[in-house]
């Protein structure tokens, strides 16, 4: 079996989830006697290909074209379709990034194939690969298998594999093979313009040692004061899951999750947060996780060190009082 990992870069910088996906590929290869190749696509990315070649891969494919300088779904799909048709991998792996969500399903469809997206793991059962993904906002896991013939397309969620387990190349360096692709400017229908960040955020949650975070369970903006009081008593920063910021109850800069900030504080106290995957990827690196939720089946408890199954409106004032008492 041949596995091809499509690594992701933007403006010459890696998306580090690419390396986690490479680890996934190495682990799949170990149980299925497969070879792993890695691919980098763009313009002027030969140095990135050289870096990939130091990892334990059979070869690195370097796909360069002037029209691939900036990412477009049309350009990437046109180029990668040609590469997949010539390299003939059985399994094509992607990091589940926003960019991959934007083009990978289309690429698979152009080849008449399907994609299993946002996987958190895999198993090999009797020679058949089973991919595990989440459904119902993380409340259930699903075992998914491919039907039909290769190539199969899979993306892995950020944090599903550990990049520090990436094996280096045993012989020093894998060969880098340039794959020529033809891309027509007329086929690229969208035009990427400026990249930008919104006004620089005043708070840097990534540096906060203690975070109190609120989710849908807070119910109404007027209830946020209770969480603020608790955060103050603890000396913590206040953060939130996406729905709270979507509602405008807290500014976007306080959002934790795949579309917000990724944090790894000493303590993360999740109040009324169910634990949808988009949120969990932003905080699961916290050293200690405490969850308070009235639903004992909420997925947040799967990653919590301490849990309280209760109404947050009863716990918030009680905890504020206990913290003040503890401080003396």
């Amino acid at each position, binding site marked *: 079996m041949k596995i091809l990992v499509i690594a992701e870069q933007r403006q010459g910088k890696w998306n580090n989830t690419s390396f986690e996906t490479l680890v996934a590929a190495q682990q799949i290869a170990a149980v299925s006697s497969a070879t792993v190749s890695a691919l980098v696509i763009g313009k002027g990315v030969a140095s990135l290909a050289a870096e990939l070649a130091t990892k334990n891969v059979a070869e690195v494919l370097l796909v360069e074209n002037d029209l691939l300088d900036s990412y477009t*779904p*049309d350009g990437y799909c046109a180029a990668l379709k040609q590469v997949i048709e010539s390299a003939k991998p059985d399994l094509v792996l992607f990091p589940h*990034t*926003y960019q991959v969500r*934007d083009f990978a*399903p*289309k690429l*698979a*469809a152009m080849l008449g*194939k399907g*994609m299993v*997206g*946002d996987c958190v793991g895999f198993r090999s059962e009797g020679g058949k690969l089973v991919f595990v*993904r989440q*459904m*119902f*906002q993380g*409340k*259930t*896991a*699903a*075992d*998914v*298998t491919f039907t*039909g013939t290769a190539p199969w397309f899979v993306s892995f969620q950020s944090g599903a594999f550990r990049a520090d387990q990436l094996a280096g190349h045993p012989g020093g360096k894998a060969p880098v093979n340039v794959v020529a692709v033809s891309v027509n400017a007329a086929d690229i229908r*969208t*035009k*990427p*313009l400026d*990249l*930008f*960040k919104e006004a620089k955020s005043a708070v840097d949650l990534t540096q906060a*040692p203690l975070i109190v975070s609120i989710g849908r369970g807070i119910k109404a903006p007027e209830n946020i004061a209770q969480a603020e009081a608790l955060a103050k008593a*603890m*000396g913590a920063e206040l953060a939130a899951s*996406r729905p709270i910021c*979507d509602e405008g109850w807290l500014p*976007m*800069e306080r959002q934790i999750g*795949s*579309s917000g*900030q990724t944090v790894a504080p*000493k303590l993360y106290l999740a109040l009324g947060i169910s634990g949808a*995957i988009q949120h969990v990827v932003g905080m699961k690196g916290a050293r*200690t996780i*405490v969850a308070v939720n009235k639903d004992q089946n909420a997925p947040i*408890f*799967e*990653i919590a*060190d*301490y*849990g*309280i199954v*209760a109404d947050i409106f009863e716990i918030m*004032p*009680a*905890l504020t009082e*206990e913290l003040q*008492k*503890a401080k003396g």
Partner: protein
Amino acid sequence: MNILVCIKQVPAKDAPLAIAGNWIKESDIGFEMNEPDSYALEEALRLKEKHGGEVIALSLGPERVKQTIKEALAKGADRGIHIADDNFAQLDPLGTAKVIAAAIAKEKVDLVLTGLQSDDHGFGQTGVLLAALLNLPHATLIMQIDVQEAKMKLKRELEAGWFQWIECPLPAVLTIQSGINKVRYATLKGIMAAKKKEIAALTRESLGVTVEPTQKIEKIYVPTKSKKTEFLTGTPKEAAAKLVEKLKFEARVI
């Protein structure tokens, strides 16, 4: 500007889920409009208010999903399309998109909108696949749409606080990022008006679509825990006191 919005009906957020094979028992639980799709619907209604045209709300699923189409009509969509399918949960992302694309191909629309993903299957592929199947340009995770003649200027969300402006010609398919707008409620007048609006009934068969699955959900199950959670019990005061004790002396984080 004629806009077709794809909306899915999903289990209500607080619905207790009982697993049955590779889906859930549908009896005894409530359903609601998939939240990400409600942002797409709202965006469609706003574009219509600004540029004229009509908004068509399309949903694939069993009889129950008509309620969600009616909700869209009550909010201001002009007509609905229901692709009746009791086996929708067994369709893979490509199959789902093939059925919906066949229905869209019968319409003359300038823009197709979807939410970024559904809260049940969570495939997050339908919009992109519709674009591929209908041979339309697309963009995902859109936070702002400015229509300019035959093209749009779009604000696309990237990761870690980054955004990008892109230009996209019309017609096109866009998936809308949650939070792009503030979703409206249906008014009583809207609910009354919706009663007179048409909901066309289609099926896979009437559309002449056959699908061959590329993947199969073997089973779904409650995920195994990656950590052992210590549950703190008692009255709120007792639980809070225990937690402070644990955080201070066991985890030593405060």
